[in-house]
């Protein structure tokens, strides 16, 4: 075993988790916690297929000198099953925070989402980190995401000896990610809402991983909005990618998706439809100054990548986990 500091990474079973693990293992001893399988990891990365709520997870913190917890394990967006996601996400997060307090882990990085602000019509153009969280105002599906963010904030204030960083990224885009935004951009044609063209902001998966790496700096603490791109109108981004757009009236698409979601016929979460209708632009000044994040992926570069990807078939493969 090397002398590299140990980082516990939740959500390693997801695509984003794997990317974070691959980057961090160059500097850290990465121990992944996730019940989901992930066969394609280098041997140097330990993957424990256990639920963070179980005792074996606590054993990990007790036995090893854990330098940091990187928690991606919460739900990344809307969740269908409230009970299950509250259990796994919220209780799991609470357990992990308890371990960090009990076994003196000096660093915690929690990946939340800018969805906690929720796209709402009529809000101010630039959303700062101090804006009230209203993401669950319109949709109960967003409750656990907001709950976990609030837990992160409480933990940040209650445990001043732990340098906690809470990250709230805009849409995370990547060629293989299966979150709502990435899947949408891979569609062969784009349903858009008639009469709306909101400003869209995103962060490429590479920049997000860089942000997590930067957040691991020992003394750094705080809550940071993350975006890699300037805001741009959704339809101009889509036009640049160059696949056809199909405008549909909002009430129609909303009703249809609520029914499909309720019946389990789509994995595209209804709250994501709001992103096609109302924009929200993050104020990222704090991330630029505090985190010193210098995004490498601007819109033209991201557009280029998605243009080159083969268009996916619409429908069943639309997923919500990153």
């Amino acid at each position, binding site marked *: 075993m090397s002398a590299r500091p140990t980082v516990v990474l939740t959500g390693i079973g997801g695509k984003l988790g794997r990317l974070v693990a691959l980057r961090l293992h160059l500097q850290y001893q990465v121990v992944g916690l996730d019940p989901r399988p992930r066969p394609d990891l280098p041997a140097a990365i330990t993957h424990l297929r256990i639920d963070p709520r179980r005792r074996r997870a606590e054993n990990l913190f007790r036995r090893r000198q854990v330098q940091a917890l990187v928690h991606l394990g919460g739900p990344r967006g809307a969740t269908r099953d409230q009970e299950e996601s509250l259990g796994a996400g919220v209780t799991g997060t609470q357990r992990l925070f308890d371990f960090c307090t009990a076994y003196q882990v000096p660093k915690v990085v929690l990946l939340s989402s800018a969805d906690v602000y929720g796209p709402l019509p*009529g*809000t*101010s153009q630039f959303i700062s980190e101090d804006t009230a969280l209203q993401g669950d105002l319109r949709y109960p599906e967003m409750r656990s995401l907001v709950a976990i963010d609030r837990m992160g904030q409480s933990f940040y204030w209650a445990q001043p000896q732990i340098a906690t960083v809470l990250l709230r990224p805009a849409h995370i885009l990547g060629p293989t990610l299966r979150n709502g935004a990435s899947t949408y951009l891979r569609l062969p044609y784009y349903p858009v809402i008639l009469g709306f063209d909101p400003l869209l902001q995103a962060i490429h998966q590479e920049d997000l991983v860089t942000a997590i790496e930067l957040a691991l700096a020992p003394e750094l603490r705080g809550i940071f909005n993350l975006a890699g791109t300037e805001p*741009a109108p959704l339809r101009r981004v889509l036009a640049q990618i160059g696949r056809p757009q199909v405008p549909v009236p909002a009430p129609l698409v909303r009703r249809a998706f609520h029914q499909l979601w309720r019946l389990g016929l789509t994995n595209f979460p209804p709250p994501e439809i709001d992103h096609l209708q109302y924009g929200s632009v993050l104020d990222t000044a704090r991330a630029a100054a505090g985190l010193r994040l210098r995004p490498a992926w601007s819109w033209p570069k991201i557009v280029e990548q998605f243009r080159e990807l083969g268009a996916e078939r619409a429908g069943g493969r639309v997923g919500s986990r990153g």
Partner: protein
Amino acid sequence: MSLGLPAGLARLLADPLIEERLSRLPRPEAGFGVDPFGFDPTYLRHLAPLATWLYRRWFRVQTRGLAKVPAGRCLLVANHAGQLPWDGLMIGTALFLEAEPPRVVRSMVERFVPATPFVSYLLPRIGQIVGTPENARALLAQEELLLVFPEGVRGLNKTWRERYRLQEFGRGFMRLAIETSTPIVPVAVIGSEEQTPSFYNARALGRLLGLPAFPITPTHPLLPGIGLLPYPSRYQLLFGDPMHFKGDPHDEDEVIDKRIALIRVSLQTLIAEGRARRRGVFR
């Protein structure tokens, strides 16, 4: 989506001056041609011909003191009248056509706009955003020129009997100016009162129809569809000297009101000057 005019009309209104002014506006690059507020100067190409025609031919606007508007951030504070905000459009057109260099006046819209199809993005594209204090602050931080009507609908929907009488001012603009040390330029609009003279505001009927007001004018609602088109009263725009305010933006209302009184006096003086100067409502 194009909101272009019919080709014939567009040719009729085509004007090399407009193209020249448009070409001198700064172009945002990062967001595929829009700034972080969603403003795209190229959209003004659709609006400018009509606005210029109204400015030159319909309202025959005379402008005085435009050079007093300082470079950089500034709040234009104007009296508001005439049932529909043609006064705002004419102030914007004056700054676009006659200021050196041409400037875009940003103004703020109601909160229902982002939830309303089409205007949700068309208004931002021509420089209008939702009126929240944060948005105003962000625009001023970007050194923009912001137009406010502190009377709001109280001024816009007032009746003929109260013409050229300033209604109660909101206080937000003054707190904003103090906080951001932004100069205020008072702008008196003459002619807007006569464009749509209203004898009576049938508020209850307006509420029933979901409208902010329901003016009864010589032609509205008598001539459906066209009754609210403005009469060609001659417009004058009088720009006052920039005023600077210091202090605590969170001061009590009475303290803020004293400063607002200075703006009202200045605006009233400009209005009186403009009215004394004109030879007739339509001349």
